[in-house]
């Protein structure tokens, strides 16, 4: 794309300004995580020295590694569950013609309009009656069936030429092997997108883990952060921010890695 120089300058200025505004809280949190209590109160931006006291203290005070591991297991579990359930559902909607398929699909995606909070109480009772409080399945299972994910994958599956399906049938591939060997590899881009989305939303989830965990056994890292804040009368913000930085590192890593994958997938393009 070619752009005139003044236009370029305007664009880059605007981009820089928005980047600075968006990134400021994270940078500030990063800075605070190295400050002592008095320094924070003075409202400084740069710490006097970069020492890791706050980081050591946050790992002392909380089983943070435990929480991180829990968060990772729960997020990865939800991600995998969503990928399996959504891709199978989307496959059925696209490749298996049945009466009322469209109706069922619209019923399915209409659940997108019901806010998650509205179904939280019934979900909680189900989990409680299954005796699944403080379990990984209690934390993950309610999120497997994702209407948005099914919609996303269905849209991608629909772009797969039907001749590919027919060629596989002639070659003797059963429906499941066609799904595994053709549909999934061809839809890698959408699967990565959905996976990243599922992982990140679960990683950042607060309310549900708060409800279904009553002890440290499967508690996730977001709850841990909240614990840091309320444990003392005067919150030690340096420690909290150190925790925050530790918690967002995996998120950022995933974002960078995922972005590369995504770009690769997108530029590959579909073959006519």
């Amino acid at each position: 794309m070619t752009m005139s120089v003044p236009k370029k300058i305007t664009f880059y200025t605007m981009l820089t300004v928005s980047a600075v505004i968006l990134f400021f809280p994270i940078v500030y949190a990063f800075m605070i995580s190295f400050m002592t209590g008095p320094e924070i109160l003075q409202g400084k931006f740069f710490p006097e020295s970069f020492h890791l006291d706050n980081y050591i203290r946050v790992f002392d005070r909380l089983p943070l590694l435990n929480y991180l591991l829990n968060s990772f297991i729960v997020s990865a579990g939800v991600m995998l569950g969503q990928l399996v359930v959504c891709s199978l559902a989307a496959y059925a909607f696209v490749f298996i013609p049945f009466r009322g398929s469209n109706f069922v699909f619209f019923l399915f995606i209409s659940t997108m309009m019901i806010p998650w909070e509205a179904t939280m109480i019934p979900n909680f009772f189900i989990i409680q009656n299954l005796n699944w409080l403080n379990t990984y399945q209690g934390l993950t299972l309610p999120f497997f069936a994702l209407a948005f994910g099914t919609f996303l994958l269905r849209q991608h599956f629909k772009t797969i030429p039907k001749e590919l399906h027919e060629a596989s049938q002639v070659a003797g591939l059963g429906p499941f092997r066609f799904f595994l060997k053709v549909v999934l590899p061809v839809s890698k881009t959408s699967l990565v997108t959905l996976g990243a989305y599922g992982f990140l939303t679960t990683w950042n989830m607060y309310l549900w883990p708060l409800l279904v965990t009553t002890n440290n056994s499967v508690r996730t890292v977001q709850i841990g952060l909240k614990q840091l804040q309320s444990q003392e009368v005067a919150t030690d913000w340096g420690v909290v921010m150190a925790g925050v930085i530790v918690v967002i590192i995996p998120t950022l890593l995933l974002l960078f890695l995922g972005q590369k994958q995504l770009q690769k997938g997108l530029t590959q393009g579909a073959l006519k």
Partner: protein
Amino acid sequence: MKKVELIGISKSYDRQKDVISNIDVRIEPGEFFVLVGPSGCGKSTMLRMIAGLEEITGGTLKIGEQTANRLPPSRRDLSMVFQNYALYPHLSVEDNITFGLDVKKVPKAERKKRAQDTAEMLGLTDYMKRKPRELSGGQRQRVALARAIVSEAPICLMDEPLSNLDAKLRGHMRSEIRRIQRQLGITMIYVTHDQVEAMTMGDRIMILHEGKIQQIGSPIEIYNHPANPFVATFIGSPPMNLAQAEADPGTSSVILPGGEPIRLPEGAFEGIGKGPVTVGIRPEFLMPAQGTSEHPVFRAEVTNVEVLGHETVFSFLAGTEEWTAKWNGQWQIQPGDRIPIALDEESICLFDAKSGTLMKKPAARQLSVPAEGAAT
């Protein structure tokens, strides 16, 4: 190699109107059978029914000796080439070729060998590691062919496989497909809308129109003796000239709408009464009138001229119809000229005006090279 037999096959998508009706044909083992017809006449539907991708709503399909109506595609022992090639975009050329073998649990070593042999046959050895998107249209086409060949299925179905290629490549692939089919002796069922492909490739051709068989026969048979005016105009380029005319067996002549009577040779009116008929004559039998009195000559006004280098194609008004003539060489004719045109009356066909059936065949025009050393 296997035969394919269609007995009273019909197909309806909406359970009301048949898009294919009453197809009866036996495709012999090792035959190159071409299904040709205008777009929308049901060629793909028929091919897909043979492949098992479309349900058969009437009649019996036999593959080999077995009734195949209810067999899934994979159990019909056939391979198929699609118009858009249907290559797996995420697999390399080699994996695309061996994909079906993998499914059929062919041992790895044999798979590799067969892929290698097929790739050699089609000149693909240099591209084995590439992805389909890194290939040109012609190369993709070859991969699609290779995939069909490597399966060693006795029957191969192709649905307009050459229509996405440019003219030159198309001509090349035509002979290539024909060569491979001969070499392997596969039973080939080939769908096309292009009459040139049909004429040059087929052992036998079936012409389909609105889901009904118009004619089945060898290309030359169909060219020389078209069963009805539809076939006459569909096969051959430019198409056969047609006109409504009046038959008069009494004087052994037909009278064109312009009032021009053409005397036909003795015996031409066997079984034809007085009344309306459709007259047909191929463009090459409207010849330059070069002082010969052998053939009837009439004068007509030229409306359009195309000089193609080796031949000149022009149209003129014959009564109310516009006819086309094809002359060898480069003729200096201008639109608007009135020129004499000789008509080879023995090459005229007559069709029944109502049913369209062929009533008078044109005379045979087969030539042969005299044997070496024979006195001329």
